[in-house]
């Protein structure tokens, strides 16, 4: 099998998750010919099964400028991909269960304000109750980002794919990249099904498998494969609009328009990435359930109908790798989003396109350089 008769791509994107699809879309919008290689099918892993949080709230300060820029794209997501992606903006809230936790929230707002960002604010007991009437009595306040929200992950990733295809991108699904090599300014990418593809530029958006791509070019990265767990309830009457997290515990809690409630936050099961599967750790799922029991007394009788985990990449400093390779020209990384990459998808694709088509970007990406892990 050889590459199809279609014109040779300018850029090969490895990985059909949201970041790969977003890079493909932004490149296609600029007339660049893109080929996306996906080992399974688009949105098969983290991009299709995550909690769908579209969150600026509580992000690492290095990510804040990107997150704020991405939020602007989210609020016009239909213009970008011709689909609303199920995006709804009812804010995200991080509940404080004690005065000490509330003090942490105040310090956070002060830190952001000093950097010139104003999207987070602290609310007290009463405002919290008007935003989340069902919250438990002991909660004293919260950190709030009102422009945040949530979207439907698979639908979003698929919308990016569809729009990219409409603009000329091609997708090749079902073949794992096994070899990546560069000769005379041209990359050759080989897949397990025997196909070979060539392009001058490659983007590594391979998610939990991105370290293997980086290793092909002598650029080892300390990527950890993790399996954040989620569970969902049967439908209950609508009672909450914002997405709720907690200051002192791991939680992400939101109700879909259809009444089902999604409970997650990043407690980990076990990933077996070579077999594309995950295993749940029910003692951890139980801890998550206990948090909901404490914070939402009305949920105690709710029925859990399903729990699952996705396969994601986590970096030691919990922030992604974005930008050019440190060892090879014309290779760009976009991976390691450490279980909070969904909201950044729209902007990081644009950044990658900026780097490829213009050599630079207007957003501060220095903290995400791959070289930071070198000894």
């Amino acid at each position: 099998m050889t590459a199809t008769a279609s014109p040779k791509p300018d850029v090969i994107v490895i990985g059909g998750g949201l970041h790969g699809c977003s890079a493909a879309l932004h490149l296609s919008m600029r007339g660049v010919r893109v080929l996306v290689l996906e080992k399974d099918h688009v949105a098969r892993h983290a991009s299709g099964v995550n909690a769908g949080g579209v969150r600026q709230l509580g992000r690492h300060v290095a990510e804040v400028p990107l997150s704020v820029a991405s939020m602007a794209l989210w609020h016009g997501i239909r213009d970008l991909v011709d689909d609303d992606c199920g995006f709804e903006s009812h804010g995200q809230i991080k509940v404080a269960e004690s005065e000490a936790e509330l003090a942490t929230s105040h310090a956070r707002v002060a830190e952001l304000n000093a950097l010139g960002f104003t999207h987070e604010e602290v609310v007290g007991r009463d405002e919290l109750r008007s935003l989340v009437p069902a919250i438990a009595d002991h909660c004293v306040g919260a950190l709030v980002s009102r422009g945040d929200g949530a979207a439907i992950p698979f639908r979003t990733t698929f919308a990016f794919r569809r729009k990219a295809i409409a603009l000329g991108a091609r997708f090749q699904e079902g073949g794992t990249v096994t070899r990546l090599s560069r000769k005379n300014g041209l990359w050759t990418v080989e897949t397990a099904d025997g196909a070979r593809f060539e392009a001058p530029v490659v983007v590594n958006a391979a998610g939990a498998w991105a370290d293997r791509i980086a290793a092909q070019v002598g650029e080892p990265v300390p990527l950890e494969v993790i399996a954040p767990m989620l569970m969902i309830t049967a439908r209950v009457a609508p009672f909450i609009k914002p997405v709720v997290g907690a200051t002192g515990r791991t939680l992400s809690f939101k109700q879909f328009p259809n009444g089902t409630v999604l409970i997650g936050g990043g407690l980990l099961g076990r990933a077996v990435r070579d077999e594309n599967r995950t295993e749940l750790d029910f003692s951890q799922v139980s801890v998550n359930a206990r948090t909901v029991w404490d914070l939402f007394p009305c949920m105690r009788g709710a029925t859990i109908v399903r729990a699952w985990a996705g396969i994601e990449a986590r970096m030691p400093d919990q922030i992604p790798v974005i930008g050019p390779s440190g060892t090879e020209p014309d290779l760009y990384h976009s991976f390691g989003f450490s279980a909070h990459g969904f909201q950044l998808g729209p902007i990081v694709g644009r950044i990658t396109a900026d780097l490829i088509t213009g050599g630079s970007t207007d957003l501060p990406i220095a903290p995400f350089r791959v070289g930071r892990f070198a000894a």
Partner: protein
Amino acid sequence: MSAPKFDFDIAVVGSGPAGLAAAALAASKGASVVLLDEQAEPGGQIYRAVTETPVRDRKVLGPDYWHGAELLGPLRDSGAVHWPGTIVWSVARPREDVADGHRPIQIGLSRNGAASMLTVRHVILATGALERPFPIPGWTLPGVLGAGAAQVLLKTSGLVPSGATVMAGSGPLLWLLAWQYLQAGVRIDAILDTTPKENWRAALPLLPGFLRSPYLGKGMKLMLEVRRKLTVIGNVTALRAEGAIGGDSALKSVVYTRNGAEHRLPADTLLLHHGVVPNLNLANATGCAQRWDEQQRCWRPTTDEWGATSVEGVSLAGDGAGIGGARAAAEAGRLAALDALHRLGRIGREQRDQLAVPHRAALDRALTGRAFLDTLYTPAEAFRAPADDTIVCRCEEITAGAVREAVRLGCSGPNQAKSFLRCGMGPCQGRLCGPTVTEVIAAERGVSPADVGYYRLRPPVKPITLAELAALPKTDADIDAVFKH
């Protein structure tokens, strides 16, 4: 990791014929065995309520039903622990990073309203069969139910339909239930037989095998009696259930197509049946590999001749591994038990093989003629992949048309259908739509169901409450891990 503490050597899930026979044999050879089952009484669906049924006239349910009672004595004598009223919602495969021979399998269960985890060395899943979904327009109306479900009501509570009653479909259970109703003095107004004419052509070459089947004589006798006493309308090619005009109230009539013409029958109850398929949800969620069975037109977990699955320490016995009926299930249960005993080091390979000889012979006898029945009773394509306006996923109210539209947008299989449509994501976890969604997508794509795959199902395989989950025993380390995050 310290050596795990085992609660039992073997857990058997399900107390139908396979589970009863497996638990009894394994415990009789000295293994510590727990038999976990949702129902209050043993018997599974085929022998449902065999100890307690209010239907005391033995001729109503027939001798094959009462055969189930013979499996209970050996269980009682074996020393196996029976936990009725227990819902198994998760079976976690053993971790590969634990030393061989000590790999614990963790079972999540709910009992007396409390969830807990049970640690065992080996699991035998005997989860039985489910009725194949029979999606027709109006099948969600009150008054329309599966013939299997109606039979459970008869066995457990002596309940029979009243008012105008129509049965529709094909397969042995349909005829058996009609016969049982006759014995109980209940008349069915009509049986609409959907067996496709052309199935006879495919099945005839398999008839010699069926002539040696133990089911032949009994089956023919009751079928002839039903045909003699009831109105049986053959060659039915389309069906629809209707409520009152303009309303979605209860069932009022059944409309069927025969030789191209539509006919209407008044009906208060419509009992649908298109055979049974393996209840593979627990095996699937455990990660057992499965394959498409073209002859039975269903997915079935992949097993070896002992019922061992692709997951170490997890085996399957009975209809949950492929439809073979009650007699075959009991023998398969015994074979799985022997293999489990061998794997646990309680009997040697030779002893296992020797003890298996009579059970394997009995299994072969019980399966004789199966291919004929499977082929004859394969539902017509129009029922397996219904017209666009028919609801296929009842939980989320997704029509066959919506599934086809998703395929045109790039949805390549049932797993993607979940993401596109939420199809199969309701509380039933695909039990009522999985086979249909598989067939619809395969037909629309023009490929075999084997190529579109099946839902990856997730625990809890049966719903549990948040309160139960929150109260699961936790260690301090679990809680520390959260607060540090």
